[in-house]
């Protein structure tokens, strides 16, 4: 298991420019709250070639979240309703979105902050379904944030972009010139290096 940002390397021909970019990357990691998700990151700056390369190894960001993970689901067949008692508030927007889609807004009420009530004829069956329903996938959110992060830290003019996101590996290459195959290969090599070099 990697520690957050256990490798954080920014390389460029000129040391002071390296520091500017390190700071930009730090600021953007902070504002997108990405630092805990990133294990190792390496950035290569080559302004003279109009080239920006970045390789990232992600940490394990947790698995999919189901309703049972964040709430207690209780069926009340006599009353014809399901009561969901929330335990983790942070996923409420996603949960509500899914519930609205399935049951319609009219059938859902929130008597208080911690409770969601659904009126349905098939309380037992629906409750069983809801318990295993996927509410949120942190990996999806992470992907959006990573792409946003990459675009924010890249010099603005570099609008020819390549990105790869597979498992816990992320590669981003940007330039304003016609792409060269070796640029992507170099970024892949950077990633290989990151995978080998852990804590010693």
């Amino acid at each position, binding site marked *: 298991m990697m520690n957050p940002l256990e490798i954080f390397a920014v390389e460029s021909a*000129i040391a*002071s*420019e390296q520091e*500017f970019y390190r*700071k930009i990357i730090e600021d953007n990691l902070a504002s997108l709250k990405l630092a805990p998700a990133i294990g190792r990151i390496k950035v290569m700056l080559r*302004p003279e070639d109009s080239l920006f390369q970045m390789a990232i190894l992600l940490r394990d960001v947790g698995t999919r979240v189901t309703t049972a993970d964040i709430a207690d689901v209780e069926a009340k067949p006599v009353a014809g309703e399901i009561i969901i008692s929330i335990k983790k508030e942070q996923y409420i927007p996603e949960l509500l979105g899914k519930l609205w889609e399935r049951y319609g807004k009219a059938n859902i009420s929130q008597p208080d902050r911690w409770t969601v009530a659904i009126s349905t004829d098939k309380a037992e069956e629906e409750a069983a379904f809801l318990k295993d329903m996927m509410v949120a996938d942190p990996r999806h959110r992470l992907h959006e944030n990573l792409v946003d992060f990459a675009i*924010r830290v890249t*010099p603005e*003019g570099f609008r020819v972009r390549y990105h790869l996101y597979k498992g816990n590996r992320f590669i981003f290459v940007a330039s*304003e010139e016609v792409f060269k195959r070796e640029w992507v290969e170099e970024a892949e090599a950077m990633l290989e290096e990151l995978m080998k070099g852990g804590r010693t």
Partner: protein
Amino acid sequence: MAAVLRPYLYTGGVHKHGLLIELLEDLGGYIIQKVVTGTEVNLIMLIPEKDVPVVKKQSDELLGMMVEAPLTGVEIAVISPTLASHHLPHSACDVAEYLRHPGANTNMIGLARGMGRRVSLSTDYERKLINEHDIAVFTFGSFSDCIVNKKPKLFEGIEIPIVVTGGPDLKTEDVPGADLYVGDIGRTSHRLRKIEEVSALDKLNEEVGKIADNIRKQQAKDPLAVLPARAMKEIENQVPEIQTVLSPAPLTLQLNGLRVKLPYDEFHERLEKLEFDEGVTLSELANILKSKMKNYILIKIKSKSEVGFAI
């Protein structure tokens, strides 16, 4: 010949600040801008040099603060390669905001296609808009290679003094076409508030002040036919509609003219016919043009040698 006017910024309570305005009117000075925020008032004013101690005394009585504001009456264009989040709000906005402290009026201009190295360019319209200002401040990024070799093509066609800010520590002569380079203000994603960043902003203000002083000195050799501040006051008196304009600084002073934030088609004739006590009209003393900024009016005052006299 008119007295030499010194620019000052007064900050104090709203209570009795009218006394200061009256005093200034009696002395023949000008209020350039008055900003009231809650119980505080900021006055940017031009004071006749020999009367500065008198105004200072009044300001002390009101327990206000009076500091010199060397960039008063200077309109500065702060130009960022684009308006994308890469350059804004930090650091371009910080630069613009900081330049306002010594009294300048700043306009932010984001070029449509200024980003990148090979692909960056500016349009004719943008260049004309920039040239309406007194000084242009270009806020560039962190790579010296870009600033030295690639970005200066954005300076083509810019006729006013060019100031460049960027990250690396370069000398002004390294940046072709620039009149001044200030380092340590590169691309950032945070507010500029560290010691070295704030010192760099201070240095920027100081050096831009020197550029403005140089322009004023050059101007003194062949003075303007009328002081921009005086034209401003006459417009306030004779075109009351200016009071209803909601834009910040409806009348913006420049070193050699002023911007009037009223629609050109409707008002340019009235401004041309604007009459001074001496019996001359503004159109004799100045060129009244349609500004590239919105539908505003731009007044560029002619020099004494061109008009034959000055008032």
